[in-house]
């Protein structure tokens, strides 16, 4: 892959920069400029620099809309994301650990279930029925558990490949030193999973935070809206306030973007080592 003349490197790189900028960055620039316009200018839907730059005002009014609904939605989404991803990581790593280390007749069943959880689309109304029976429907903790149930398979799959790379000698040393299973796992193994945990946390956080379908089904109602559902605040049959709609899109994109920028290197490393090479 290193045979490339300097001129070609530049040409290909330049072409790539132009093309990807046009295809991938222009829509984001569009979001940004729309979010900074006044309502009249935004309604023209054009890609232009805003005449009255009022990004800050728009962001403030997005937060104030409908009695600060967006702030409540941010709190809901934060709780949902943190709680469900934490549970996924703990439960998933426990399963992955025992699944890799212990030969058991259960393993075939568990492997099949992991695969099933990855492939099978969740049955919506029966899930609601079960949740209603358990008093979990329309509650935030119910939605948290649903996200855990749907995300667990992927977590186990990624983590098991990584657990397999941790030498068993480490376990044995800990066992000889008298560590019980809980100490062995949470004090010795869990810290070693750090890099794959980062990967799982980032991937699943993006998924849960951006999830639209599950909150729509399992947590309906305006009081407990998550951030994705607030986007429909500024869209109505009569009139859409485009500048506020785009300010809202911008505001709810920022958290995941920041997280990605912080963990960028580790994600790519985690995907490379844990996942594809396996």
């Amino acid at each position: 892959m290193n045979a490339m003349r300097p001129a070609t490197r530049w040409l290909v790189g330049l072409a790539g920069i132009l093309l990807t900028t046009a295809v991938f960055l222009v829509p984001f620039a569009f979001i940004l400029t729309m979010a900074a316009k006044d309502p009249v200018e935004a309604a023209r839907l054009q890609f232009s620099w805003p005449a009255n730059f009022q990004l800050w005002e728009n962001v403030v009014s997005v937060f104030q809309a409908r009695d600060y609904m967006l702030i409540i939605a941010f709190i809901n989404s934060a709780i949902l994301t943190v709680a469900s991803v934490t549970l996924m990581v703990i439960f998933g790593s426990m399963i992955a650990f025992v699944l890799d280390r212990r030969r058991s007749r259960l393993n075939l069943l568990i492997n099949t279930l992991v695969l099933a959880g990855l492939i099978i689309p969740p049955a919506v109304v029966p899930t609601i029925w079960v949740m209603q029976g358990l008093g979990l429907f329309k509650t935030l903790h119910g939605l948290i558990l649903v996200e855990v149930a749907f995300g667990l398979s992927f977590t186990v799959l990624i983590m098991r490949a990584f657990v397999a790379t941790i030498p068993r000698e480490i376990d044995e040393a800990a066992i000889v030193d008298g560590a019980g299973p809980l100490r062995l796992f949470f004090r010795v193994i869990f810290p070693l999973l750090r890099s794959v945990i980062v990967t799982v946390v980032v991937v699943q956080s993006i998924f849960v935070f951006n999830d639209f379908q599950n909150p729509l089904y399992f947590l309906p109602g305006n009081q407990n809206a998550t951030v994705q559902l607030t986007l429909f605040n500024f869209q109505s049959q009569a009139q859409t306030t485009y500048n506020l709609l785009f300010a809202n899109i911008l505001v709810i994109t920022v958290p995941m973007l920041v997280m990605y920028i912080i963990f960028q290197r580790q994600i790519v490393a985690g995907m490379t080592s844990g996942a594809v090479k396996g």
Partner: protein
Amino acid sequence: MTITQTSRPGRAGRPTRPRRASGSYVDKAYPLWFHLPGGIVFVTLFLVPTALSFYFAFTRWTLFKSTFIGFDNFVLFFSEPGLIGSLRNTLIYGFVTSGAKVVLGMLLAVLLSAPIIARGYLRSVTFFPVLVSTVGVGLTFQILLDPFHGVVNQVWAVVLGIDGPGWLTDPSIALLSVAGIDVWKGVGLATLIYIAGIAAIPHEYFEAARVDGASSWQVFRRIILPLSWSATSTVILLSLIGGLRSFDLIWTTTGGGPGFASDVIASVIYKQYQAGFYGLSTAGNVILFIVVTAIIYPLSRWLNSKETSL
């Protein structure tokens, strides 16, 4: 990431180890109850509902009372043009998005694995859309693709001199337009998986090829393509599973319309649920289950059998 690994547990990076003298001492360190916390959540909220769906799909159902009505829901599903169309649309959507992500992801990854300038920038930019919420992307493109005022059609009119099509409002292309947006959003993930796959190919292969005077095309065809096969199968399976189940993007861009032109099974499930036809909605779920499993299971076995080991 590799779905491929699970179906062959014996080989998944686990060297065969000698059987230990005292099996019980090993087993005690790895108690089976570790499966329980996650297992209970998974069984209660995923497995049980899935199993129940095979009963409720055959009923008229109000959540409080269900009456067994045999195959009526399925008969209705397959006789109503709006509903049967969703099955066809689901297949088109799944295969178009998956195919496009494989081809474009591969091309982008080859380009971004080559020593070109601004490689880091290019990698970040292509991955960027993966982070943004699907709803946000859907609403943004709904406005970019507006038939009269949208930026895309304004550029189209200037460049080609004719009016652009109604991307999301013309029934004949609405579904493919949404598929296009899906590819735009998802190709970054496919590219990332391919980059990882290409990076895992040992350097000696490329050096040997260079010594032998292989052309770039030969390197691609004879080395990169076969040796990144596990990345290919991961991309195919992940994007196909996602595409066949896709709901968010279709719902926020077209809502299944115009008419039923871009309805997929997942959006039909939601519409029937909203209308209170819970039995019919669940029948849609069962059909989706069968479609996804009938495609993914044989496909993953076939992809596995084709794998070349490094």
